[in-house]
């Protein structure tokens, strides 16, 4: 058991934090106010090679693991970039894992290098408006016509679809009534798309993270060449399942980052702000909640690294990955809330940044899976309690 980051992992953390200093609080505040994808940030991250951190070396990546990707995304969020920074690159770091695992050599050579270089951006189109987390019930249909599939359906909460060039899309190719298991008959595609050509992309206004768009997709006759199908027809669910634990681990790492950022701001303020002739941080009513949040955030990070380590060793990590997501998101939310309360009125003002973190901290709480479903999972799988739904 080794709780130290390796030299290389430490170097990754240091270098990412240093790169992020170019994108300061003012940059993210501006992005939060007026929106607009953080293109400069995405380009800087791509240029320094970070998008390829977990991609195979043969295609221009570094071939490192989820542990290193978690360290990267945690550092991005911790720098003050929060979810605005993390979500701008998140999908491009690990989202294409189904292509890595199930793609052909031709597909990998065609799809991975432009993503790693930052020349293309991808979005992940799985969730649908009417099915929630009941993924196998999704209604988007892909019908084969010759060497193409024609897709019709709706998707929701598709991040970065306003700026993405590519889409990883899950659609049903065989009706649910015609398959033995509900997980069969779904097919995964990775394909180019243009807004307005078979796909209408409508942005959803939301509480936070204005810089990174979230969207409704109305897919109407989108044609996808057969060459863009990832894995066998009908095997799509298996393909995306592969990426779910890493996804949760990375979101959890981002939550830890935002929690740390909030606590850093709050502690700095509590040291400087003098009321009744003493810094407010001298009052235990201020200090203790911050101390408690720190412990919660750091304990959650241990679970994140534990889950990442298990995944990288090829071990089962569902329990750890889900627990990490739950713990980190809850800890981050409470840290951000406590930071706002520490700053008082100033905490409610945009220019002190913590209210932005608080709004963004709800993202890892809600996505990609609700805390309720994680508790269901732990109750059932770990404690052996009967399934409730």
């Amino acid at each position, binding site marked *: 058991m080794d709780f130290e980051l390796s*030299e*290389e992992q430490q*170097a*990754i953390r*240091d*270098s990412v934090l*240093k*790169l992020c200093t170019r994108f300061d609080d003012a940059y993210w505040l501006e992005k939060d106010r007026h929106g607009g994808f953080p293109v400069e940030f995405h380009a800087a991250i791509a*240029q*320094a*090679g*970070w998008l*390829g*951190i977990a991609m195979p070396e043969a295609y221009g990546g*570094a071939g490192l693991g989820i542990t290193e990707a978690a360290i990267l995304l945690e550092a991005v969020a911790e720098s003050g970039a929060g979810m605005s920074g993390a979500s701008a690159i998140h999908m491009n770091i690990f989202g294409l894992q189904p292509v890595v695992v199930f793609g052909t050599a031709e597909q990998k050579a065609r799809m991975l290098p432009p993503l790693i270089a930052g020349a293309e951006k991808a979005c992940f189109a799985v969730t649908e408006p009417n099915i929630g987390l009941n993924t196998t019930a999704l209604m988007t249909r892909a019908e084969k016509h010759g060497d193409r599939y024609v897709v019709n359906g709706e998707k929701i909460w598709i991040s970065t679809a306003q700026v993405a060039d590519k889409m990883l899309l899950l659609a049903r190719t065989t009706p649910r009534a015609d398959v033995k298991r509900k997980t069969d008959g779904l097919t995964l595609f990775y394909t180019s798309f243009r807004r307005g050509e078979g796909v209408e992309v409508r942005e959803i206004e939301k509480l936070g993270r204005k810089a990174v768009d979230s969207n409704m997709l109305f897919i109407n006759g989108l044609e996808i060449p057969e060459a863009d199908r990832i894995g066998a027809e009908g095997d799509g669910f298996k393909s995306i399942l592969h990426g779910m634990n890493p996804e949760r681990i990375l979101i959890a790492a981002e939550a830890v980052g935002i929690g740390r950022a909030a606590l850093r701001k709050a502690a700095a303020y509590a040291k400087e702000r003098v009321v009744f002739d003493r810094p407010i941080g001298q009052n235990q009513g201020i200090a203790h909640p911050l101390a408690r949040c720190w412990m919660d955030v750091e304990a959650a990070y241990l679970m994140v690294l534990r889950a990442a380590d298990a995944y990288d060793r090829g071990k089962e990590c569902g329990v750890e990955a889900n627990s990490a997501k739950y713990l980190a998101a809850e800890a981050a939310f409470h840290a951000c809330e406590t930071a706002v309360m520490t700053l008082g009125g100033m905490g409610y003002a945009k220019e002190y940044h913590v209210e932005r973190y608080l709004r963004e901290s709800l993202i890892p709480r809600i996505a990609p899976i609700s805390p309720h479903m994680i508790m269901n999972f732990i109750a059932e799988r770990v404690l052996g309690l009967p399934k409730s739904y």
Partner: protein
Amino acid sequence: MKIVVTVKLVPDPNAEKKIDAGSKRLVRTGIETVLNPYDEYAIEGALKIKESLGGDTTVTIFSMAPAASKEVLRKALAMGADDAVLLTDPALEGSDVRGTAYAMAQGIKQTGFDLVICGGLADDGSTGGVPGALAEYLGVPGFTNCRQVEVAGGTLKVQRETDSGYQVVSGPLPALVSVTMAIGEPRYASLKGIMGAKKKSIATLALAALSVDGAVGGDGAKTEVRAVAAPPVREKARVVEAPDGAAGARAIFDLLKEKKLV
């Protein structure tokens, strides 16, 4: 062309520091060792020259430090240097400026060089004395406080910062330069750099491999730290309040007079 960049490994500049009363030396326990921030500018300067010259120009990092700090040099390699040499020997402990420059000169001579680039000073000792002494022991011209360094046709051309501007000075190679922060913000290591650094070599040199005459380390030191004192605590600023500008100026003038500053 072979460029050698000297780097010092120093206690984290952001850490709180204590001086041991007995040895009058910094207590290093619990403080992380990092690259001297000023030396990162020297590395940046070297990499710029390497990029402008291309071809077979190499950048070697040279450091004199305890063996345990070896891995800190990977950061310099991750920035883009080609290899590193660590001069390490328990006998070097306690070296003063002269001893450090002398031992390093012997090591750098053995390593081979066309140009040595140093940071302006070290964050811990802050003497700024090593670059000049090193040039002397290497027997090459030394150009200190450079804000720009160019190498063309085997000639060195530098801009030396002065209080009122800068001097343009040129000279032959081999030579030594020390650089200021105006040389350019040090680059951060890219992922490729970090991955590549794993495969680069860090050679170690011991004193026995060098031709060193006389005593080095603490025994050979020509200087001695007599006393260490904390900088005087700055008095709290006084705010002068006055109904108008003229009265304010008068009040400030009286204050300066009282302190015998005017």
